[in-house]
């Protein structure tokens, strides 16, 4: 498990030089700012600042980049809570309860909850990485396309959990997202729905679409208000409420732990990562809740579930990077670039020969999480003041930043055009009671599910018995079925256990 001699060397490596510590606070701040601006993200920040690391030694360079990664991982929660705009795709589920909390005037508390859950999740992710870096990497190698399909399918079931209103509307919105996501060249090389446009070969750009559906359409709805928070007394940023939120997150240890473990597991799978982890964690938390109706209306556990998962996935993605040399997502891909710049190749040999450096990176990241708690709290106090800006200034500013962010992602006008089109469609859907979150989930997970299913069919030659040779996929699918059936069984059990008078009362309240 742990090589204690290497751990001692790692500690002395970190304590003997002040450089790794000097670069961490600015890295965290850069990550927070880039994560908080819709369209920008930690990978963009890491790519922008990658050349700076040329002049650094390997350890400070990686510490700087991971601090940007850590800060950016949390930064996306800030606009998600304050404006219903997920700063990154990893913060989609944070909007579900964070934004309703903000509209009720609990924005400072929601931000505190998000920060504490993020720090806990990231810390647990790195502790697990420290203990299990080798087994995690070996387990990842056992996953094939069928297992990846099962995970994506699990995420897609969130569509059923999400909608409080009509189930049919949620389902249709989710299918619409899946279909929009399938536009472009398929994994098999077929062109679908491209209208012959070269710009659509890679499909509809997902982040601009996500920003359009969530952010811009929400801005259109906000136009009717004077301020984000109606009650003037609640608009003041409250340091006490942020601290209250920080403490409150630990009142939900089960949610924190479940979210963090889901995040580590999903984050370790290359190509899946935080965007799926937050949705899956939210879905599972809501499914298991005694009072699922509270979710989507400002339930603190919803914020905790999402943020603990998206931050802990960072530890999982670092496991595959360090142990296998495989980047799990764009942020770790940039980090792999930094490895290459310093003539370092990740993988089993790197871990065996440089265990002290691997441990130093992990310990450094744990220390970053503690620093994030302090720097993040101050950052949140400033960010919470956003609700004091009148809507007539806020809406145009957010729309411009989102539009420029979309341009920066695609490098062409395809990004801004996608954003505007999805904004109009998103507003139309919201006005008719269709959940735009379901569209986004379909958009993010549908194409991934299709590609993995296609690979499974190609591998198996179309033989359904193939699944019997994949025990991990069977376990995941069984867990998925159990998690879908669990709320139904519990409801039935509660009804069977209820007294006849209570059942009559329940029936009366349902008919009312």
């Amino acid at each position, binding site marked *: 498990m742990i090589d204690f001699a290497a751990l001692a060397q790692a500690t002395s490596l970190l304590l003997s030089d002040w450089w790794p510590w000097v670069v961490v606070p600015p890295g965290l701040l850069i990550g927070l700012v880039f994560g908080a601006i819709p369209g920008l993200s930690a990978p963009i920040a890491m790519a922008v600042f990658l050349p700076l690391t040329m002049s650094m030694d390997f350890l400070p360079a990686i510490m700087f980049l991971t601090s940007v990664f850590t800060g950016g991982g949390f930064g996306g929660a800030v606009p998600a809570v304050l404006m219903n705009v997920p700063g990154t795709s990893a913060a989609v589920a944070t909007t579900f309860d964070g934004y309703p909390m903000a509209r009720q005037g609990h924005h400072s508390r929601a931000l505190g909850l998000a920060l504490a859950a993020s720090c806990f999740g990231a810390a647990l992710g790195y502790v697990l990485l420290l203990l299990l870096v080798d087994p995690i990497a070996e387990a990842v190698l056992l996953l094939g396309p069928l297992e990846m399909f099962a995970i994506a399918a699990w995420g897609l079931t969130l569509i059923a959990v999400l909608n409080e209103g009509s189930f049919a509307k949620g389902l249709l919105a989710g299918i619409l997202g899946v279909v929009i996501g399938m536009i472009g060249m398929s994994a098999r090389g077929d062109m679908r729905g491209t209208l012959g446009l070269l710009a659509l070969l890679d499909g509809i750009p997902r982040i601009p679409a996500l920003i359009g559906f969530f952010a811009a359409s929400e801005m259109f709805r906000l*136009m009717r208000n004077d301020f984000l928070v109606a009650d003037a007394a609640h608009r003041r940023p409250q340091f006490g409420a942020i601290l209250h939120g920080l403490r409150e997150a630990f009142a939900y240890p089960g949610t924190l732990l479940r979210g963090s473990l889901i995040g580590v597991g999903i984050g370790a799978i290359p190509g899946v990562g935080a965007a799926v982890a937050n949705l899956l964690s939210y879905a599972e938390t809501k499914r298991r809740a005694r009072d699922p109706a509270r979710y989507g209306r400002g339930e603190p556990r919803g914020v905790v579930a999402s943020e603990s998962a998206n931050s802990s996935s960072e530890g999982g993605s670092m496991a595959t990077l360090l142990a296998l040399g495989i980047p799990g997502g764009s942020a770790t891909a940039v980090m792999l670039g930094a490895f290459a710049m310093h003539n370092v190749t990740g993988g089993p040999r790197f871990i065996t020969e440089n265990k002290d450096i691997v441990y130093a990176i992990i310990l450094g990241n744990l220390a970053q999480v503690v620093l994030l708690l302090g720097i993040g709290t101050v950052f949140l106090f400033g960010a919470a003041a956003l609700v004091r800006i009148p809507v*007539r200034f806020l809406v145009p500013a957010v729309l*411009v930043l989102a539009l420029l962010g979309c*341009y920066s992602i695609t490098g062409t006008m395809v990004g801004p055009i996608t954003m505007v089109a999805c904004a109009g469609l998103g507003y139309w859907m919201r*006005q*008719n009671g269709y959940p735009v979150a379901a569209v986004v989930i379909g958009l993010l997970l*549908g194409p991934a599910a299709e590609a993995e299913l296609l690979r499974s069919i190609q591998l198996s030659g179309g033989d359904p018995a193939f699944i019997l040779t994949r025990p991990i996929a069977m376990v995941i699918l069984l867990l998925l079925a159990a998690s879908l059936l669990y709320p139904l069984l519990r409801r039935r059990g509660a009804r069977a256990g209820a007294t006849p008078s209570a059942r009559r009362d329940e029936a009366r309240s349902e008919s009312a």
Partner: protein
Amino acid sequence: MPRSGAEAVIIPAPPAQRSRFVRVALPLAIATFVAWFAADAARASFTLENLVMVAPAAALAFITCTILAVRAWHGPEPDAAEPAPLGPVLAMLALLAGLVLLMEEVGFDVGVLLFLISATWLLGERRPLVLVGYALPFTVFAVLGLQAILPFPLETLVLRLP
């Protein structure tokens, strides 16, 4: 304090309802889009591999669209938002579309400045000094900031990083 009789009998006007054509428009539009996509995908390649997700998604979409359209035709939907004036939203959408269309022609800096001034005016700010005093520094900050970050050029008329 007891209310007078005149105050007590005030009944709020019922909320305006959308017409049935407006209510069914969205499910029909989605069904049309999904049908077009499924036909295009089938034209590209009529194989199991190509249609493994497309066909079930299209079938499910048609079933749910039919249910929703029939339901919407017969009565108002309880989960729909209150009808709001569409004018300001359409105007803002038009401004955004205008910005996207003109950004590369007039430059990002000029486009963003004009959008910020007109959008803020649309949302009720009428003081010229405030409009310019808000839009100008924000444009400079956003455009120069983006120029510094992006690895590719940003078309601008005036603002350029040295």
